[in-house]
């Protein structure tokens, strides 16, 4: 019997697990995918938002501003790559300038620090080289960029190291509450029990809420496509460049250009309502549109700079055409005590994750006293980046262990030791994507052309993988149909 069961191991679910793992609680996280960052947590802009888009007094506004501060502590503890870049919203005409002032007002009311409207092309370009013809900008110094999937992994693995149990490939399909205990069943028929149940199922949150017995929520999946540009362009872009937000899709921030902590530049996301909560597709129309809209904002790239496209799905609580503001739902459901529902956690959900976790903790604390665990270790004890060490240190280590000398991924210069560390992850996530997210291999220019066969060789020779064991990401994403020459 677990004290707390968390359904959904993404950034929010794992943030809750991490926060609660400070206390003497038995905690389980149920994740339907083979790893924790396969949904929105690994498919977004990776921006730490400041909080000036959201209605003053709303949860989105409060939790975003709180999360922005708390997240900076977490980045240090969890070794998450972060850059305090600041960000600009560019205005190209006077109407847009008016919008900037409105946003600044909202931001000020929300307690966002340092917002400034800057007028004049030269001044704008001084703050953000490459801003081009923009006549004004809203500069937000509190905005930054970070690796959202490494955050999610670090949260999950640190929570795990503090005793949280992660069940991967585990989709909860049935929930019953009997005598104050939630009885859960997964897709394989395995059963689990817990006293508290937390729904952080993201794009599936409305569906899961219904399974538990709370109807009335609906999620409208809204796809955002991205293009990824070669990191050779990175020196040209200092900070995220956003347009004035679009009024077309409720709350979407518009196609922006964002540097990433890994180097490649992101263009996107688009906003398009779709039926499939996992319709992670790239479409020719949107790819062209992103290229054009991105080029308008930042005309420093060409078609051949695009190294990849991908998409993510927002968990929007509002249907297409609905333009009014909808807030996060974070509450204990009155009809089902001890069931904490998190619905419609779209942007700025990632930035807000620490604050959401704090709120969830407080909801539990209203009913019971949580006892601090003396041996809680807040730091992520893995995730060191060899490439970031000094050359002297690299030489020392390469002498110490041949696996630190052997480079497996040439684009990102990842050592064999880092690959093996990623393979031996504490969550026992076994897919190639799990290695990719943790070690950053197969992500660079060649997209695994060089290192993928080498990683396969390591998995085969040192971890005994058989042809049928190799899985790219989702269940069923087999890599090989077998041996070319069979042994029998």
């Amino acid at each position: 019997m677990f004290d707390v069961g968390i359904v959904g191991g993404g950034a929010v679910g794992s943030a809750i697990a991490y926060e609660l793992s400070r206390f003497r609680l038995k905690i389980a996280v149920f994740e339907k995918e083979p790893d924790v960052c396969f949904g929105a947590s690994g498919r977004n802009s990776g921006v730490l938002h400041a909080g000036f888009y959201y209605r003053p007094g709303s949860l989105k506004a409060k939790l975003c501003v709180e999360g922005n501060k708390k997240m900076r502590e977490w980045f240090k503890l969890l070794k998450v790559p972060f850059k305090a870049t600041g960000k600009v919203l560019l205005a190209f005409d006077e109407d847009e300038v008016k919008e900037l002032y409105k946003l600044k007002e909202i931001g000020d009311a929300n307690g966002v620090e340092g917002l400034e409207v800057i007028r004049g092309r030269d001044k704008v370009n001084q703050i953000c080289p490459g801003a081009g013809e923009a006549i004004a900008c809203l500069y937000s110094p509190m905005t930054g960029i970070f690796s959202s999937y490494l955050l999610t992994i670090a949260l999950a693995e640190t929570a795990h190291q503090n005793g949280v149990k992660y069940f991967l490939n585990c989709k909860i399909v049935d929930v019953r509450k009997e005598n104050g205990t939630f009885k859960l069943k997964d897709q394989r028929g395995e059963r689990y029990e817990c006293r508290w149940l937390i729904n952080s199922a993201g794009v599936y949150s409305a569906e899961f809420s219904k399974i538990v017995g709370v109807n009335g929520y609906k999620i409208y999946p809204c796809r955002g496509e991205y293009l990824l540009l070669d990191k050779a362009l990175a020196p040209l872009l200092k900070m995220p460049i956003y347009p004035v937000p679009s009024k077309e899709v409720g709350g979407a921030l518009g196609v922006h250009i964002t540097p990433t902590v890994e180097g490649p530049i992101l263009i996107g996301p688009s906003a398009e309502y779709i039926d499939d909560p996992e319709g992670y597709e790239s479409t020719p129309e949107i790819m062209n549109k992103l290229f054009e809209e991105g080029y308008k904002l930042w005309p420093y790239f060409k078609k051949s700079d695009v190294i990849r496209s991908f998409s993510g799905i927002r968990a929007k609580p509002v249907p297409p055409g609905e333009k009014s503001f909808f807030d996060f739902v974070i509450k204990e459901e009155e009809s089902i005590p001890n069931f904490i529902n998190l619905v419609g956690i779209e942007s700025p959900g990632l930035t807000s994750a620490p604050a959401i976790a704090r709120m969830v903790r407080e909801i539990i604390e209203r009913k019971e006293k949580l006892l601090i665990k003396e041996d809680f270790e807040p730091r992520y004890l893995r995730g060191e980046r060899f490439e970031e060490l000094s050359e002297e240190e690299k030489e020392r280590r390469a002498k110490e262990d041949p696996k630190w000398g052997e480079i497996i991924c040439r684009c990102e210069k990842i050592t064999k030791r880092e690959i093996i560390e990623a393979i031996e992850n504490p969550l026992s996530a076994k897919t190639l994507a799990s290695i990719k997210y943790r070690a950053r291999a197969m992500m660079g220019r060649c997209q695994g052309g060089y290192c993928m066969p080498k990683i396969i060789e390591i998995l085969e020779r040192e971890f005994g993988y058989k042809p049928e064991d190799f899985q790219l990401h989702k269940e069923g994403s087999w890599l090989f149909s077998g041996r070319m020459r069979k042994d029998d």
Partner: protein
Amino acid sequence: MIERDVVIIGAGPAGLACAVKLKEIGVSDVLLVEREKKLGGILNQCIHDGFGLHNFKESLTGPEYIERYVERLKKFNIDVLSDTMVVNLFQDKSMILSGPWGRERIRAKAIVLAMGCRERTAGAIGLAGSRPAGIYTAGVAQRLMNIDNYMVGNEVVILGSGDVGLIMARRLTLEGARVLMVLEKLPYSSGLPRNIVQCLEDYGIPLYLKTTVTKVYGKARVEGVEYVSLDDDGKPIPGSERFVKCDTLLLSVGLIPENELSREAGVEIHPITGGPIVNDTYQTNIDGVFAAGNVLHVHDLADWASMEGELVAEFAKRYLEGELSKAKRWIDVKAGKGIRYVLPHKISGERDVNFLFRVDSPYKNRYIIVRDKDRVIKKRRVINLHPAVMENINVKSEEMKGIESLEVMVE
């Protein structure tokens, strides 16, 4: 810091040939660095024949071709550091080497870049649809099959008719997979004509020209692709969409010279070839840094890459001896009408040059002309010109006396 006379980065057909030649002509301090355990680069996985027809006058498989060089390498006792990656390269011709043996910074008097090329990926061509397992570049599939003993799929569509794709169509068929079709967006194949015959026609595999994949289906594994006919401008023809069920999509959509190290060192890169800009001594903008093989421009034959390596060996030797006098001036070589690119990019006019070039589309019964403005320096009739085939034309220094410009063109 250890200093070597010549460091060659990459032991594929260009690097190996360069190392052997350097020894042959008396340069004793040569270090050949290779990131794989085995020498030979990508030819180790090219188990088909057709290599060596020019350099050895017989048709060898990739591994046999490499063996010829490796034997000579051993005979000459050439210093080889395999299993070693050059992780950084600096303008002062120093570099950081890393391998299971450790990590060290060394310097070279002369460097030969011979890192080869890499494949264009699904992302780079803006492939639409989801990102399931089962999308492989042809070269990766080749390695997984021919070296690692894996079958990459059962029902295969190949996008792009580059040589590696064609070779893989045959390879997969021989191993029992069903290759359903090869799609090529251009009106002609970018592979060698012989490969069209012996890899596709022999096995009844259809090649659809002016056709491309518009969408990949499948969330976990490829379940099929949508393909479409293209009009003369390369735009999809509405209504021509068709669907084919398959579990694997192989991409053979181009090769890109691997110049991340070169860029890091400050070597100027040519926008068309993707390789360093070199003069008629195959030297880059950095003195003493040379380039040969696919890192310079993508060759159609390994033989040419090796020959380039040998040529560069001569220049590197003369550089070390201080005999590679600086040209008084450099004349930019222009790729004229019908020409995609010409190498070398700059000439002094003082040395014989074998210009290498590729045409921009197929031509029949034309003249290749080398000229200085209106003065024709050289003219040669050619029956067949094809973008997949690298062409060459030799010009003697006497013929270039007094030139002010130089252009190679098709007429």
